[in-house]
Structures are given as C-alpha cells and as structure tokens.
C-alpha cells in the first residue's frame, strides 16, 4: 500500500525522513531506508536540508522506489526558478515519484554556500498551485502538457510558532496551502502536546490530514540548542532533565518519542519521525509506541 492509499484508508500514518549524504556514498543511507521499510508508510527525502549542498532528493527518491519504498519528494523553492521547478516535477513523475512535499526552504546563508543566490521565484503556496495545475494537464502559464502527472501534494506547518501573530499567520497560510492543493501536512517537531492540541483545534475545520512531527532527542544539549536556535521547537524542561539524568540516552530518547506519539494518536492522523542520524532507531520507537 502506497502513502496515498494509506492516507485514504484512515489508518494512523507513519512517515520517516532521511537526509541524503554530501557525496556519492549511498550505502549507509540505503541501509537505513531498508531498516525502516515496511514499518512506515512513506519516507521523506530532504532537499538540500539546512541549505547544505549534497546529493539531491529526486535521485534518492528514485533509489527508494527501486527498493519498494514510497518516497515523499521534498521540494524547496530556494534553488530553482519556476521553469526548473516544473521541469523537475515532470522528471520526478517519470522516475516514479508520486508524493511531493512543497516547502519554501531555508535561506542559503544558513548553509555551507552562503553566497549562493536565493531564488524563491515561487513560494510554497504558489508551488502547490503549480503542482495542482500540472496535475490538471497544464503548466503554470496555461500551456497544455503532453501527458500529465497525478502527484499527491503535501505541505508543512509550524504549530509551535512562538507568538499569537506568528501562529495566526501559520493557520492563514495553512488554509491557503489547502486551497492551493495540499492534501496532507507534516509539522515541525512537537514536544508540548497541550500546545499541539490547541493548534489542532484551530485547524479542525480544514478537513486535511496532519502528521505530527517527532524529532528524536539525542541529548540534553541538542534540546537546548533547538530551543535556542530552531524556530517553532520548544523542548520542555522536564524532557531536558530526563535526558540529562539518564544513564541510557537512546532508551530515554525512544521513551520520550513513544510517549509523544501515543499522545498524538487521538489528536491527528499520523506522525512524521525525524531521526536526524538515528534512523536505525525508528523501528524501536514505533515498537515502544505500540505501532
């Protein structure tokens, strides 16, 4: 069962994420993918995450398809203008890619080529419109395609926006993304279920599918770093303390993630697990969470 079918089936969805390497050595990455395969409904492949130059998402998605995994092709607006975005979408389709996650993308200054030109010719909302248009058989200027894709488009939302105005705008943009064609949402990492519930209540009328984000905590230091530097991520003090005091970081990390997943089960339609290097531990998280 592919991701789209899983989503339609009403089951509690599980997606994971892998980040391509900087270079051509793909054995480790495929090994991770194989370990998760069968335990998740789809695997997202990031698009030059954190604006660091590396192997591309489209090629890795294609490799995952070869291994019987349904990938979610992450596509940012950072590096391609509207010509390249549309062309890459067509290329992705003929390579067997069916799910696309449309993102704005980080700014190049955050990565390892800070002087790269930030393109942002389109934004995430207009990219979603373009995907919908391609699905209808037309490019964004209305020219007819010879053979159209049938992508399953998704988007992201940040429920942890740290003030009322920012959250309000996230909700407004989420609604625009749905109008533009987004069928599912994967969220930024969640650590506060009360806050997440408030967000879900606000998005209730939207009739879309939300996969709550889970970022595996590797250490107390990582939690503090994210609290300071990553927008929308807030790890409460009690989790940081647990990570600090534990003798077995992996075990505690898995316990926390599983606890959050269990809490999300009645709030949203699935979870999106970002393991950030701990991909091999995703099956243990799922087992602990009873999935």
């Amino acid at each position, binding site marked *: 069962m592919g991701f789209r079918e899983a989503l339609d089936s009403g089951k509690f969805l599980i997606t994971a994420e892998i980040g391509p390497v900087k270079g051509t050595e793909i054995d480790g990455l495929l090994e991770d993918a194989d370990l998760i395969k069968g335990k998740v409904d789809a695997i997202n492949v990031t698009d030059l995450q954190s604006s660091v130059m590396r192997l591309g998402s489209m090629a890795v998605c294609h490799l995952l398809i070869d291994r019987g995994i349904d990938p979610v092709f992450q596509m940012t607006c950072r590096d391609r203008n*509207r010509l390249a975005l549309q062309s890459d979408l067509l290329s992705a389709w003929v390579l067997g890619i069916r799910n696309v996650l449309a993102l*704005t*993308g*980080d*700014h190049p*200054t*955050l990565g390892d080529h800070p002087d790269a030109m*930030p393109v*942002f*010719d*389109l*934004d*995430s*909302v*207009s990219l979603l*419109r373009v995907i919908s248009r391609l699905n209808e058989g037309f490019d*964004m200027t209305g020219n007819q395609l010879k053979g159209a894709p049938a992508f399953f488009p998704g988007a*992201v*939302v*940040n429920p942890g*926006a*740290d*003030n009322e*105005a*920012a959250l*309000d*705008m*996230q909700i*407004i*943009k989420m*609604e*625009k993304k749905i*109008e*533009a064609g987004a069928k599912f949402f994967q969220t*930024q990492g969640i650590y506060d279920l009360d806050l997440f519930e408030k967000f879900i209540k606000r998005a209730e009328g939207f009739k879309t599918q939300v996969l709550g984000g889970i970022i595996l905590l590797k250490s107390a230091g990582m939690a503090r770093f994210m609290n300071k*530097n990553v*927008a*929308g991520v807030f790890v409460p003090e009690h989790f940081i303390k647990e990570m600090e005091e534990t003798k077995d970081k992996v075990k505690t990390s898995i316990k926390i993630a599983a606890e959050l997943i269990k809490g999300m089960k009645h709030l949203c339609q699935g979870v999106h697990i970002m393991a950030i290097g701990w991909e091999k531990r995703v099956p243990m998280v799922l087992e602990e969470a009873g999935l």
Partner: protein
Amino acid sequence: MIVAELKPFKEIENMLRDYKKVMVLGCGTCVTVCMSGGERQVELLASALRMAGRLERNEIIAGEKTILRQCDPEFIDQIKDEASNYDAILSMACGAGVQGVAERLAGIHILPAMNTTFIGVSDGQGTWIEACAACGDCILDRTGGICPVARCAKSLINGPCGGSKGGLCEVSKNNPCVWQQIYARLGKLNLINLLKGMSQPKTRPVHPRKLVNPKNAFG
C-alpha cells in the same frame, strides 16, 4: 532614497594608484541625506587620500566638488570645464550617479568610491533600512504599506516562512520578521483579512528598464 556606503579605503586607494590628479565628487541628494557621499564626506575622503599619499610618498592632488545630482546632465555640465583638469573622477554617488557622470564626461575615467546598497527609509537617527526592491509590481496595498519583497529575506508574498523566533527573522537575526510587522499593521487597520488573499507569483522585470514620461520628454 538610494543608500550607499563608502568602499574600503584600501580598495579606493588601489583604484587610484595610476592617477595623480583626482576630483572627489560628491552628490547632493540621496547620499548626502544618508550621510555617506555628500559635501562633508567628500572633504573627509579627499583629505584621507592626500594624507595616505603623503605617507606612501605617492602624493596625489585631490580636488573637492559636490553637485546637486550626479544622475542629471544639467548638474554634471556645471563641472565639465573643471573636470578636464583631472586625470580621474572619484564619484561618491550611487551607481546611477557614477554612470550619469561617466556618460556625460566620457573622456575622463570615472571611478566609484561607494557600494550602492539599497533603496531605503530612515529608521531613527543615523540608520536607514531597505524598504523597496524596485520590483516593478507593487503589492503594498495588500501588505499594510510594508514591503515583504524588500524586507523578507526570502521575499515571500504569501505569508511568513515559519522560521521567525521571538518575532525576529531567522536569516538576519537582528531584523524583525516583516510578516509580523505586516500582521500588526493590518491588525491596526482592521484588515487582517487581506492576508488570506492569494498572491500570484510576481512578474519579473527585464533589465534594463526605461521610463518615458511624455510630459518630460516633450517639455
């Protein structure tokens, strides 16, 4: 207003290394207002060049002049005769001014003393911030008079990226997230609903652009 900053002194010195007589030319409009290329700055730069020349036993004659606008032939013509006494002109105007002078005084090498940085507005004493990207497709009616094209690091036109923290931009961390400012402004105007409108991808200008205003053209 156009904002420009003085280039590093070493770079200017290097540009001038083959010239003995240089006219340092200020501009009396934008760069005078942002205190980077007006009469006062001409005086400072010219004396710095003289001093550096003396120290390095490579003395140069640095003349000082400021005209009202270097982008306007009418004012450039005022220095035509005087300029012919110099080997080069070091312009302290924006890039447009440098080109205006180079076009009108084609026989003299015109060198830029400034890096032109942005079209901006004053943001308190001695501070200017970028405000307009001259995109040629204005959307300020929908954004409470605050431009996300110029003031969002990603030029996003359909709302913020989700990367702001404490109301600040994640890219240029000392700057407010412009979408938070837009939200606040539209809130005051009771126009938050404008944020729900779908902004279409922008048309992109083809350079170079040109304005022909018949009234001016035909006097």
